[in-house]
């Protein structure tokens, strides 16, 4: 079960039997648009508040994920999820709608893989037979909570990142058709003293590097064992730093493709997203929408998704605290390929 120091090995091979992704207009104009289940043309989605819109995204993603898994709400046993809002309200309210036992988790933008790791652990241990892992974010709720009200129109430096509007959900079960969750490496907090919330990629990069290296040590693998290693939302600045750090530490990343969900979801040169995408939904919609389809088709045999999170609060950075960061890695592979 436990392998090395920080890695959970899922020997019973839990399966992702259904996923769904719902996104907003900017993501719908990006290069991965064809891979999403539902694209909203408006940011407000006819809701009275941004928070209601964010909640709607997650509820729709949960419903669609269950539908794609050919499962009813009654068959769902547990729900694990989190988001960026204070007291993770989007997930709590979506859980109220779902009406199943619920574990709220907070990992900021690493929540996608944190919740998937926990869901897989539940299924692997036999503590549940159908677990939904979900997360969501909305550009305007994040702006409002962490930066300035959207109407204020404050300037942003080019190192800033653009919070994704969307939600991703995955149903994990002991058996079925779909990609297999092979193992997960739980990250530890890394804080190298960055205080600028407009440069989160740089703050999170060392956490991603720490988790990738720990994963490779725990599993005795090299990067070449993966067709793709993808970070969550480091964007232009952070992903460059992560690649440099890995090179300096002698990790042979040239054996594989090393990408970032925050750079894949948008056309960074054309869309006005500063350094790239971020937010809980960033790694969730790219993984559940785009990457798992590639794993399922066999285009990618095994991938390592390293979702990164900046665990700051609006209060902590206003008080001048540094940004504690984390990264959780989950290895997902095509079923039946490696046994």
């Amino acid at each position: 079960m436990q392998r090395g120091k920080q890695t959970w090995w899922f020997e019973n091979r839990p399966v992702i039997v259904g996923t769904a992704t719902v996104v907003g207009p900017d993501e719908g104009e990006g290069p991965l648009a064809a891979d999403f289940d539902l694209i909203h043309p408006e940011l407000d989605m006819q809701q009275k508040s941004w928070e209601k819109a964010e909640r709607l995204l997650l509820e729709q993603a949960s419903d669609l994920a269950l539908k794609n898994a050919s499962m009813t709400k009654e068959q769902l046993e547990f729900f694990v999820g989190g988001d960026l809002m204070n007291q993770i309200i989007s997930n709590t309210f979506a859980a109220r709608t779902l009406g199943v036992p619920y574990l709220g988790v907070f990992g900021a933008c690493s929540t996608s893989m944190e919740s998937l790791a926990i869901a897989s652990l539940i299924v692997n241990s036999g503590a549940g037979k159908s677990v939904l892992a979900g997360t969501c974010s909305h550009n305007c709720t994040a702006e409002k909570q962490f930066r300035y009200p959207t109407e204020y129109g404050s300037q942003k430096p080019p190192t800033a990142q653009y919070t994704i509007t969307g939600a991703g959900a995955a149903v994990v079960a002991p058996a079925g058709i779909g990609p297999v969750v092979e193992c997960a490496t739980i990250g530890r907090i890394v804080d190298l003293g960055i205080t600028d919330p407009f440069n989160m990629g740089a703050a999170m990069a060392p956490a991603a590097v720490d988790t990738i290296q720990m994963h490779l040590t725990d599993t005795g693998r090299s990067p070449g064992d993966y067709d793709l290693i993808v970070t969550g939302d480091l964007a232009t600045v952070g992903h460059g730093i992560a690649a440099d750090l890995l090179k300096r530490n002698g990790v042979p990343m040239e054996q594989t493709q090393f990408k970032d969900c925050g750079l894949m979801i948008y056309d960074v040169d054309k869309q006005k997203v500063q350094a790239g995408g971020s937010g809980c939904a960033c790694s969730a919609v790219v993984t559940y929408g785009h990457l798992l389809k590639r794993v399922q088709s066999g285009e990618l045999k095994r991938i390592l998704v390293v979702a990164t999170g900046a665990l700051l609060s609006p209060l902590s950075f206003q008080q001048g605290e540094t940004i504690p960061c984390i990264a959780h890695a989950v290895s997902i592979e095509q079923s039946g390929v490696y046994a």
Partner: protein
Amino acid sequence: MIYLWAFLIGGAICVIGQLMFDVGKLTPAHTMATLVVIGAVVDGLGWYEPMIKFAGAGVTVPITSFGNSLVHGALTELHDTGWIGVISGIFKVTSAGISAAIIFSFLAALVVRPKG
């Protein structure tokens, strides 16, 4: 010629604000408040009026002008009516700007609902 100076001096004030924002990592609110205080201090030293004569709108349009107006009103009223004027004069020059902000905010609030 005054147009050129207005452009250069006004632009220079904005460059200072942008540097405070980008290099000094100050928040927009801190940047604005600091510029207002600088304008107030400069007028207290008696240097703002000569700058207006020299660069016109280049120094009356940026936010530093608000600090200038606050101090200027207080000093003028101090001169005209005595010490109580320091209190009553602060908003004398700025009253048009402040009233306009209140009235237009009120009118905007009648027709639109911010989502934050």
